[in-house]
């Protein structure tokens, strides 16, 4: 770690990263700056740093996610950690083991960093209270997904040069989206103008208190937007009938050229993935010139390296 980055890490004062909510704007910027450096490391031929040498990182995923899990795995390995992946979705939970039992088991293995994804809001925070190591929230229910918001912010900042003052439209299944919540918190903290656009059935109650501008029409919501952030339609979370059909959803809320034209010329198109092409986004837009979706994936590794590095500064025995 460079002298500069260790100074920056010191600004990040938390033992865990459980959400964007408790971060100050300075801490967010610190993490983004660290991530900028990590992008450089990832693009080198020699991609290894020794920040986490000798440390054990466990990726504990109660919900399947190839993309996020690999991203954390690569990030940990590039920092020199011993990374182990555990998928618990189908094993111990079915045997009746509670989350707290799992925490006790893991704790006995003395990991240094625990990256956790869970289908229930608050589960990662609960686990963090029961283990001695640092915990990173890799998504908890419909609550938060902080590294996704950080990587989105990094992508925007590297493309446009700033966050402040930009108009960002977050569109789609806001109700079930942890990505939306973390992005609303982070972008608002950095003084972007955040909007949400969704069918009325996919807007959570009270969202207008978190976001000043709430739209149910893409035409109005996308007007003059600098960034159009699409969300995945989480059909697996929809127990009732939230929308009449996928066909109708695409017609009114799917991002196609006609709707994208409401936004500013050259507006960035983002998507946290995995995409349902033809449901929330037209394939031509997803793969088109305004799309930075693949860049988001690259930034994901960098942000996760930054987060792990910042937390490493607080690990004991250093």
């Amino acid at each position, binding site marked *: 770690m460079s002298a500069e980055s260790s100074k920056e890490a010191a600004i990040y004062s938390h033992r865990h990263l459980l959400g964007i909510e408790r971060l100050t704007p300075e801490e967010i910027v610190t993490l983004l700056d660290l991530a900028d450096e990590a992008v450089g490391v990832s693009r080198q031929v020699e991609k290894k740093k020794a920040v986490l040498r000798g440390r054990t990182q466990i990726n504990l995923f109660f919900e399947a996610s190839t993309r996020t899990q690999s991203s954390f795995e690569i990030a940990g390995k590039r920092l020199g950690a011993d990374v182990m992946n555990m998928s618990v979705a189908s094993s111990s939970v079915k045997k009746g083991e509670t*989350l707290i039992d799992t925490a006790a088991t893991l704790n006995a293995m003395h990991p240094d960093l625990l990256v956790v994804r869970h289908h229930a*809001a*608050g589960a990662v925070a609960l686990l963090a209270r029961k283990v001695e190591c640092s915990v990173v929230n890799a998504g908890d*229910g*419909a609550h938060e997904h902080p590294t996704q918001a950080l990587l989105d912010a990094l992508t925007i900042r590297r493309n446009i040069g700033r966050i402040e003052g930009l108009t960002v439209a977050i569109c789609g299944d806001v109700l079930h989206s942890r990505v939306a919540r973390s992005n609303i918190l982070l972008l608002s903290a950095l003084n972007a103008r955040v909007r949400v656009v969704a069918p009325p059935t996919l807007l959570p*109650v009270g969202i207008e208190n*978190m976001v000043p501008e709430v739209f149910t029409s893409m035409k109005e919501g996308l007007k003059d937007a600098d960034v159009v952030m699409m969300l995945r339609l989480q059909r697996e979370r929809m127990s009732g009938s939230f929308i009449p059909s996928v066909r109708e959803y695409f017609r009114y809320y799917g991002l196609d050229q006609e709707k994208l034209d409401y936004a500013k010329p050259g507006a960035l198109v983002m998507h946290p993935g995995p995409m349902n092409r033809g449901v929330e986004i037209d394939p031509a837009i997803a793969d088109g010139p305004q799309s930075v979706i693949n860049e988001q994936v690259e930034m994901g590794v960098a942000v996760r390296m930054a987060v792990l590095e910042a937390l490493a500064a607080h690990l004991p025995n250093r």
Partner: protein
Amino acid sequence: MMADSNKPTVLKGGRIVDPARHIDAVGDLIIIDGRVAATEAGGNESYPGTFETIDCRGAVVAPGLVDMRVFVGEPGFEHRETFASASHAAAAGGITTIVTMPDTEPPIDEPALVDFVHRRARDTAIVNVHPMAALTKGLAGEEMAELGLLREAGAVAFTDGRNTVTNARVMRRILTYAQSVDGLIVHHTEDPDLARAGVMNEGETATRLGLGGVPREAEVIVVERDLRLVALTGGRYHAAQISCADSAAAIAAAKGRGLAVTAGVSINHLTLNENDIGAYRTFFKMSPPLRSEDDRMAMVAALAEGTIDVVVSSHDPQDVETKRHPFAEAADGAIGLETLLPAILRLVHSGDIDLSTAIRALSTRPAEILGIEAGTLRTGARADVVVFAPDTPWILDETKMRSRAKNTPFEGARFQGRVLRTMVAGLTRYTYSDT
């Protein structure tokens, strides 16, 4: 020292609060053969040496509390609570009568099971126990239970406990039929379809926490439907525990029209709100969910003005295995027998309600609604008595609670007001000691 029912006893010089007789005055309460023999105002009389005298100066002497919503784990979930453990917790809370819910395994939907409850309670409990029996077979909300036979076996009322009867036709028939057996219908009012995705009150707090919300309408729709069915049938109906302002307004309007309806509220909804959930604290997860502060204040106002008749603990013991989960996956429910009185005294100390209103809602009214012997200290009444120091400050230590389960939302809470003695039929069942 334990008072003996065979020995005449005098509770001397306490503030006697008996809402049934509109009494709130310092005096002596004389107990002979397990019954109230007399109340002497002034408290300066002297008594023969054969009397056991208990000094109650500075304390309140009131009819023992009647808690009409208590979940006991027996049969089926004895690891959570038994009649023995629940009754010890009740006695420590000043509760002399508990009314048990039929949500057990098996559910209390057969006369033989009502009989089982009576026998187990007789053999193991130290307070009075009255069972409510199921409204519908298996608590499934489809087929009416044997209301007549259950009543004959000793069920004091009918309820499906935590479940709501969603089928209006079934509810209509129950309300109609129950009149032939003088049956009171006690109903949990929450539309399960509207509430399904929710685990806390719907609103901004739920959205920020990423938790599904239960709208107030899930409750109000069922309350209003039930009130219309009561108007249609003429049945006797009690909303088990309401939680929001619109429900209270609906109950008040129905009472104004002369319908035979009453309502209860849990102590949790009177003294806590959705913000208490904080960082996903599962001990605050309950059904109906804790509502907003405005709703809590509306509940207090409805209690003060008499729209709400009864306050219950809604004692719902849950073991570690059902609460040690992420919030959305944890079981609903909180224990409350030992904290019911101290918690309601918060409202008395804050001036929101007077002591007489509190005792009426905790003792007199539930006894009247259920038609059971309790709720007053008038001469000849069974001597079920609570003596408490209304101003004594203390901090709740959950490790000292008598309930088998420890899922209290008042963990570490500061209270003012402490139960000193609980008597059931003249027998002392609990005395406070520092040790």
